[in-house]
C-alpha cells in the first residue's frame, strides 16, 4: 500500500453506504474476511484493509486498487464476517464507482471481460459464447499479442474441440424481449 499522506474524503463512506448499506462501520478489524479470502494472494490491499481505508475516506486508494478487480466474488468474506459487513458487495460497488469516475482499472482484462459479456447480452438477451471469447480478446488487446506469439492457437484449439463435441453454438439465440434487455443494459457512462 502506498502512503500518499492523508487527504481523506469525509463524504466518501456516506455516499458508498447510501448505495448499500454495506455496514462498513460495523467492522472491528478482526481480519476474518482476509483470512478466508481465496484471492488474497493476488491483492495489493487485503479485504479488511479495503474496509479500513474506506472508513478513513481514502477513496483513491481503494478505487485504484488491484483488490477490487481480482476479487473472485466468492462471498466467503460476507458470509463469515461476524458483524454482517457486506464486503463482497462493497467490492462490486467500488468497481462500478471506479468505472463511472473514470479511474482506470489496474486489471484491464478483468474489466474488458465484464464489458464484453454485458455487450454480448445486450445484443440478444442471452450470452452467445461463440462471440464472447473473440470479442474479449480483441477488447482486452490480447488478440494482437496472441497472434504475435502464436498462442492464439490455444484458443482456436479449444473452440474447435468444443465445436466438435457439440458444445458451441454457431448462431446466437435472440430472445423476443431483446428490446427490454438492451434498455436495461443501455450504456450509461
Amino acid at each position, binding site marked *: 500500500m502506498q502512503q500518499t499522506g492523508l487527504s481523506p474524503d469525509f463524504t466518501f463512506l456516506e455516499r458508498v453506504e447510501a448505495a448499500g448499506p454495506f455496514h462498513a462501520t460495523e467492522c472491528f478489524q478482526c481480519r476474518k474476511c482476509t483470512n478466508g479470502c481465496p484471492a488474497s494472494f493476488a491483492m495489493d490491499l487485503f479485504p479488511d484493509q479495503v474496509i479500513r481505508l474506506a472508513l478513513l475516506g481514502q477513496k483513491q486508494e481503494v478505487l485504484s486498487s488491484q483488490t477490487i478487480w481480482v476479487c473472485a*466474488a466468492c462471498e466467503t468474506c460476507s458470509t463469515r464476517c461476524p458483524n454482517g459487513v457486506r464486503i463482497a458487495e462493497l467490492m462490486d460497488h467500488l468497481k462500478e464507482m471506479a468505472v463511472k469516475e473514470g479511474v482506470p482499472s489496474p486489471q484491464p482484462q478483468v474489466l474488458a471481460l465484464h464489458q464484453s459479456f*454485458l455487450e454480448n447480452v445486450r445484443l440478444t438477451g442471452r450470452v452467445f459464447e461463440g462471440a464472447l471469447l473473440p470479442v474479449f480478446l480483441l477488447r482486452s488487446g490480447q488478440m494482437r499479442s496472441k497472434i504475435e506469439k502464436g498462442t492464439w492457437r490455444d484458443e482456436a484449439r479449444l473452440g474447435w474441440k468444443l465445436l466438435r463435441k*457439440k458444445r458451441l453454438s454457431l448462431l446466437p439465440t435472440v430472445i423476443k*424481449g431483446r428490446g427490454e434487455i438492451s434498455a436495461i443494459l443501455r450504456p450509461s457512462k
Partner: protein
Amino acid sequence: MKVTYYPGCSLEGTARDYADSIHAVCSSFGIELEEVPDWNCCGATAAHSINHKAGVELPVRNLKLAATVANSEMLVPCPLCFNRLKTAVWQLGGESSSRFQAEVGSRAPRIWDLANYFAGEEMLRKMEAAVTKPLEKLKVVCYYGCMASRPPEITGAADHENPQSLDLIVKALGATPLAWPYKTDCCGASLMISRPDMGYRLVGKLYDMALRVGAEAVVVSCQMCQSNLDMYQDKIEAEMGRKFSLPIIYFTELIGLACGVPGAEGWLSRHFTDPLPLLRRTGIAY
C-alpha cells in the same frame, strides 16, 4: 409432475452435456420441465460487478416471466443463475414484501438449486429404488463451489460451510463420497479467462486435495466449476508439472449411469478429461 425450468445461457452452449443429462434424468423420474418463456441471461458476474442496476433488473425480468407459468416450483441447474435469482428476490425485500408482490406478483414459484431438489428425501428414495448399476467401487469428492451456498441468508443453504446435497445423492447411487475440506472453495469463476494464472492456482489446489484424500473423480453441480476444472486440466497439469487425470462429473450424469438412463456415456464423452477409463475400471461403463 410439471416444474418450471430456468436453464441459463451456458446450458444452451458449452454445458450442453449437463443440459442433456438433466433432461434425460428428469424425464426418467417423471419430472416434466417447462422452460421459462423467453428467459434472458441473469447477468452473471459481469452485471453485479459493474452494473448493479442491471444485476437486479435482468433476473427480475426472469422472475416475472416465471410467475406466468402455473407451477409452484422452479429448478435452476446453474448455481450462479440460482444465486442471481435469489439475490434479486432478496433485493426486492423477499417474496412476501409489497415490492416483490407489486413487481413479480403472488404466483412466483419456489426457486430450487437443482442439486438440492434432487437431495430431497423423496427424490433420494426414488433414486435408490431406481439404481440398476450401483456405483460401488467409485470414490469421489463432491465439489459445491460458492454460489449455491453463499451467502446463506440469500441462498437459504442449510449448511453453507459443509453442504450435503451432492454427498447424499452420490451415496444413494452406491458410490463413496469422501470427506475433504474444499467443498465450497472457489474455482476462480470468470477469472479463469481474465486472470488464468489465478484460476490455475485455485483449481490446482483443488486437484491436489482431491487426490490427497483418495478421490478418483470430482462430482459437481455447477457448469462453471465443471468447465474450470475440466477444460483447462491439461494446461494446469503442464503448468504444475504433475498429472491429475481427474474426471469432473455432473451429479446428473452419475444418476444417469447408476439408474440406467439412456445416453449417459454420450454426455460423458463430451468432457475434456475423459471419464471413460475410470468408469471402465470401476465396472460402471464398458
